[in-house]
């Protein structure tokens, strides 16, 4: 339960706002951090904390692109393919990345490590191609760098499994 495990952080979140309801977005992030995604029960937990209906929590989760209602790979790669990045090769980069990982749009690799999807402008158009990996930016990318990154993460995971 979030309520017990993160009592202090939750209290701090609530202290920022005049209305409990404002805590819904930070609490969704907290739940996603805890579970890796947003399972159904997180909506009731948050609804109870904020005094709102779980369906309202769910509709808010569904409104935004950074909340996920299904499990993602350990590395969630959101590639920007909006116009400014696309003018600098982002569509090709996105296609190459999916091909290298062998996934379709929004798909996750079989080892559960990588999910690839395209997103709209991330305010880093001067550093295209770029992507967001678990909410951190990786910029000025090319496939060579990506391959090195992917292999490094695969090797780390393989080591962890032994």
């Amino acid at each position: 339960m979030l309520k017990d495990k993160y009592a202090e952080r939750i209290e701090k979140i609530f202290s920022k706002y005049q209305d409990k309801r404002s805590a819904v977005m930070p609490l969704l992030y907290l739940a996603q951090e805890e579970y890796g995604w947003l399972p159904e029960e997180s909506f009731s937990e948050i609804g109870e904390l904020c005094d709102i209906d779980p369906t309202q929590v769910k509709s808010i989760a569904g409104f935004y692109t950074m909340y996920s209602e299904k499990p993602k790979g350990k590395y969630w790669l959101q590639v920007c393919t909006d116009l400014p990045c696309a003018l600098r090769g982002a569509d090709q980069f996105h296609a190459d990345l999916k091909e290298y990982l062998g996934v379709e749009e929004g798909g996750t690799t079989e080892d559960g490590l990588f999910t690839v999807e395209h997103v709209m402008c991330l305010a880093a158009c001067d550093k295209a191609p770029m992507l967001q990996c678990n909410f951190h930016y990786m910029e000025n990318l090319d496939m060579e760098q990506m391959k090195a990154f992917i292999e490094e993460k695969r090797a780390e995971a393989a080591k962890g499994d032994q």
Partner: protein
Amino acid sequence: MANILLRNRDIPDIGNFEVYSKNGGWEGFRKAVQQHTPDEVIKIVMDSNLRGRGGAGFNTGRKWSFIPKNEPIKYVVVNADESEPGTFKDRELMEMNPYQVIEGAMIAAYAIQASAVYIYCRGEFWDIAHQLDACIAEARENNLIGKNILGTDWSCEFYTHLGAGAYICGEESALLNSLQGMLGQPRVRPPFPAQKGGGLYYEPTVVNNVETLANVPWIIVNGAEAYQQIGTPQSPGPKIVCMSGHVNQPGNYEIALGQTTFRELFEKAGGTEYQGHKLKALLPTGASGPVIPITDKLMDAPITYESVIEFGSTLGSASFIVMDETTDMVWAAYKMMQFFKHESCGKCTPCREGTYWLLKLMTRIINGQGTANDLRLLENVGKQMNGKSLCALNDFAINPVLGTLRHFRSEYEAYINKGSDEKAAPKKQLQPAH
């Protein structure tokens, strides 16, 4: 000239509290609080004619003056949602020169006697928001935020809030709803945010863009007149232009409005050609304003709010997306339509349905299945949408299509004419965004 906004380019460690303070930081805030009444501060900012950098260009001081004086609870909300394609200026300011943004917001807070400031960062600015939390804590330790600021009886808190990926939350009333834990959809106005009933928690609220507020400390220190000296009467002050797309050195460029021509700016960003190709078209305010063909006449014009209007567009946030002669303008419009279809929040029917149909038509055309009638249909749908929704996203969404049709109609016609050959074997089948 030294930068006024991107001071991080001149003083590398300005993101450090000590360095910022040693280099004139907080002077504007101290001066405001210790030497001026709140009303005087509003008047100085109004007289400077600082215009909002979030897109609409409204006089900032005038906006502050709308806040009723006798309400006990008032807020300042900093709009750091920065999601317009091609815009990345607020990000550099917050990342590299965060205290100037915080100081500007605190001057606004003093001017309206706010009890709290919220900075609404787009969710992807996760790292930046956490860095800002640390800056806020540092300022609080120095009695610049919190209780009895600088020994006065005014107290004001400062909080960060993270969005979670939705362009519409940059629209101020949708932003306020999002911050209140509701769906990020626009509100019916009036009441406006500055009025009781219209702001955050329905209290009077000033919403300003990050870059707007970063101008304020300088204005308080140097005065309205000095600020007016920079630029033209309608376009005073420095402005950050974000250069992206077919630019040799993409990035942010601070210019003095009115004192820099398009050509001079392009020269700074690596020239008026891109990899040996001539430049063809400019989107001056990301995806949301009409496209301008790049001509010598444009290149020789000074960059101001009023000059861009003469070329049939708006300066807005000054997010310059540059396209060279190799760019397929139908494809560019299609890309932008994908954006608006994806980002329409779904509340107003003309915008929700209109963006759906515009994208559907664009998809048909780009896949070689369009007809001459589709061009008329595009114009028709666009005209029928215009002005019919609660917020400007609806009106922005028309521009990619109508703007490119106005200036590059022949490219659409080429798609339609060659359509019949390609229908048998389309080169690339593009899908509408989901």
